[in-house]
């Protein structure tokens, strides 16, 4: 059976050259970067090189602006809380978009419990942040604006350069979460006007266990994991040298291969959506159409009258690895807050599937996915009481309304006795 990995947003395989670079740092060059002897000094050099490779990928001025953390989540926590705590005296207000990643959203919620306030700027139906709203949200107490570069669920590219200008005018640092773009879209921290940028090399074929935080020298930030003086006192704890070395190599490869990777996935993305929308009725693309407003790696679809987890499982049984933003898939039984923020009907959010492309996917893979997905949808619709009720005219379609029948949500609320959430 063909194996098609379409969950690159969750994980990517490590580049062989990154693995080779890491290898000696496990058993031979195993020193602690804080040690003053040979073993320590050798890995210090390696650490510096990796910092340079990261700085090059995002056009940072100096490698001293690069901090290594344990993952994208920690980088986001450090960006949000580190800036908030450092500027507490100035003010306790934050501004974020409504579709930030949970690592940003939940860091902010934690600070809200400690007395900070936060304005969540809405996005349009394609997930683009409202720049006027963002500008209006900034107050004299605002110490940070957070806006991701690309949305992790629906692939929307945000107007970060414009946001950067607004922030510069207001004199408020901008933090850009580049987790879903790094390696796939050019990033220039200076063009962004970003004070902070975070990303995670495991999204572009680097190893797990390392995250990156770029911090412009002028931005004030304090540590959130306390202990030793590693990372210039901004991140305590023994550095994960092998992972950092591998991440550096991955960054170097990504900087070089990005145009090819991007062009390749853009072709696949179009082929995939063209095929799905051609062969499957009542299917909707969430986020902008493939093109300049959408990252080339993401396809996010809602297929009506069927639920996401079943789609995901049947894909998996057919060798296709995908993700879903439906509530059955999340441990919290909630649909992705991104889908709520773009105002997606609950029925469509339930039928959600996220397909994320990578450099090793092929056109034949895309055709196989389309073919297979047609069969999966048929099977699940055959089992679905909603599809039957749609065919009987009891309920209507959200995607292509016929003008008669209840809405899916009305029906769902009626049979469950409560409104869906």
């Amino acid at each position, binding site marked *: 059976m063909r194996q098609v990995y379409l969950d690159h947003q969750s994980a990517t395989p490590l580049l062989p050259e990154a693995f080779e670079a890491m290898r000696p740092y496990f058993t031979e060059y195993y020193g602690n970067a804080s040690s003053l002897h040979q073993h320590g000094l050798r890995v210090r050099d390696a650490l510096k090189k990796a910092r340079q490779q990261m700085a090059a990928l995002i056009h940072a001025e100096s490698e001293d602006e690069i901090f290594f953390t344990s993952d994208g989540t920690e980088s986001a926590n450090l960006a949000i809380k580190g800036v908030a705590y450092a500027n507490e005296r100035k003010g306790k207000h934050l501004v974020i978009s409504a579709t930030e990643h949970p690592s940003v959203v939940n860091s902010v919620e934690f600070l809200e419990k400690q007395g900070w306030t936060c304005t969540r700027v809405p996005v349009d139906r394609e997930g683009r942040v409202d720049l006027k709203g963002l500008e209006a949200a900034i107050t004299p107490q605002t110490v940070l604006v957070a806006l991701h570069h690309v949305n992790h669920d629906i692939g929307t590219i945000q107007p970060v350069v414009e946001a950067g200008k607004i922030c510069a005018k207001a004199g408020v640092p901008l933090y850009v979460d580049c987790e879903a773009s790094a390696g796939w879209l050019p990033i220039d921290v200076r063009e962004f006007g970003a004070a902070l940028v975070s990303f995670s090399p495991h999204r572009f074929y680097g190893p797990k266990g390392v995250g990156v935080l770029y911090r412009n020298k002028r931005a004030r930030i304090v540590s959130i994991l306390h202990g030793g003086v590693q990372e210039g006192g901004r991140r305590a704890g023994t550095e994960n040298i092998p992972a950092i070395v591998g991440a550096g190599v991955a960054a170097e490869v990504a900087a070089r291969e990005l145009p090819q990777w991007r062009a390749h996935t853009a072709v696949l993305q179009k082929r995939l959506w063209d095929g799905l929308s051609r062969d499957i009725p009542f299917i909707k693309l969430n986020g902008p159409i493939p093109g300049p407003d959408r990252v080339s790696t993401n396809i996010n679809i809602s297929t009506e009258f069927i639920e996401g*987890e*079943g789609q995901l*499982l049947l894909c998996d049984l057919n060798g296709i690895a995908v993700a879903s933003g439906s509530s059955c898939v999340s441990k919290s039984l909630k649909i992705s807050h991104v889908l709520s923020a773009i105002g997606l009907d609950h029925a469509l959010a339930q039928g959600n599937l996220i397909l994320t492309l990578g450099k090793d996917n092929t056109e034949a893979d895309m055709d196989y996915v389309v073919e297979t997905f047609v069969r999966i949808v048929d099977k699940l619709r055959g*089992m679905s009481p*909603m599809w039957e009720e749609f065919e009987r005219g009891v309920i209507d379609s959200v995607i292509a309304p016929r003008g008669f029948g209840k809405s899916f949500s009305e*029906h769902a*609320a009626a049979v469950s*006795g409560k409104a*869906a*959430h």
Partner: protein
Amino acid sequence: MSDTYTLYNPTVMDHFMNPRNMGDLRDADGVGEVGAAACGDIMKISLKIRDGKIEDARFKTFGCGSAIASSSMATELIKGRTIEEAMTFSNQEVVNALGGLPPVKIHCSVLAEEALKAALEDYVKRHPELAERAAAAEPVSA
């Protein structure tokens, strides 16, 4: 399926991939459709009842793998039972027969129980004489 990792155990996977009693019953004697507000799943169970016994059962489910497997298993379990027996049916039977469900998915089996009970209620509603008989019997069984 050897060397394959699956979200659910083999029994659940089997009932998800090859659901038993999937579909509708022409001229069903009782139909129940329920939804879970928590996750948005919807389940429908149709029953054919003859001589106080469930002769046939069918389901349709909008929901995750464990919801589909739960309804498949529930319809298997209740076929052949009397209405009285079916009235005491509990989701735990489904969980046991499936060899367990992840904690976060137990509510799927509850939904199956609720769909079955809704179908039985529908049958009882259509047959008011049953309710009277049951009420008359109550003091004895209590």
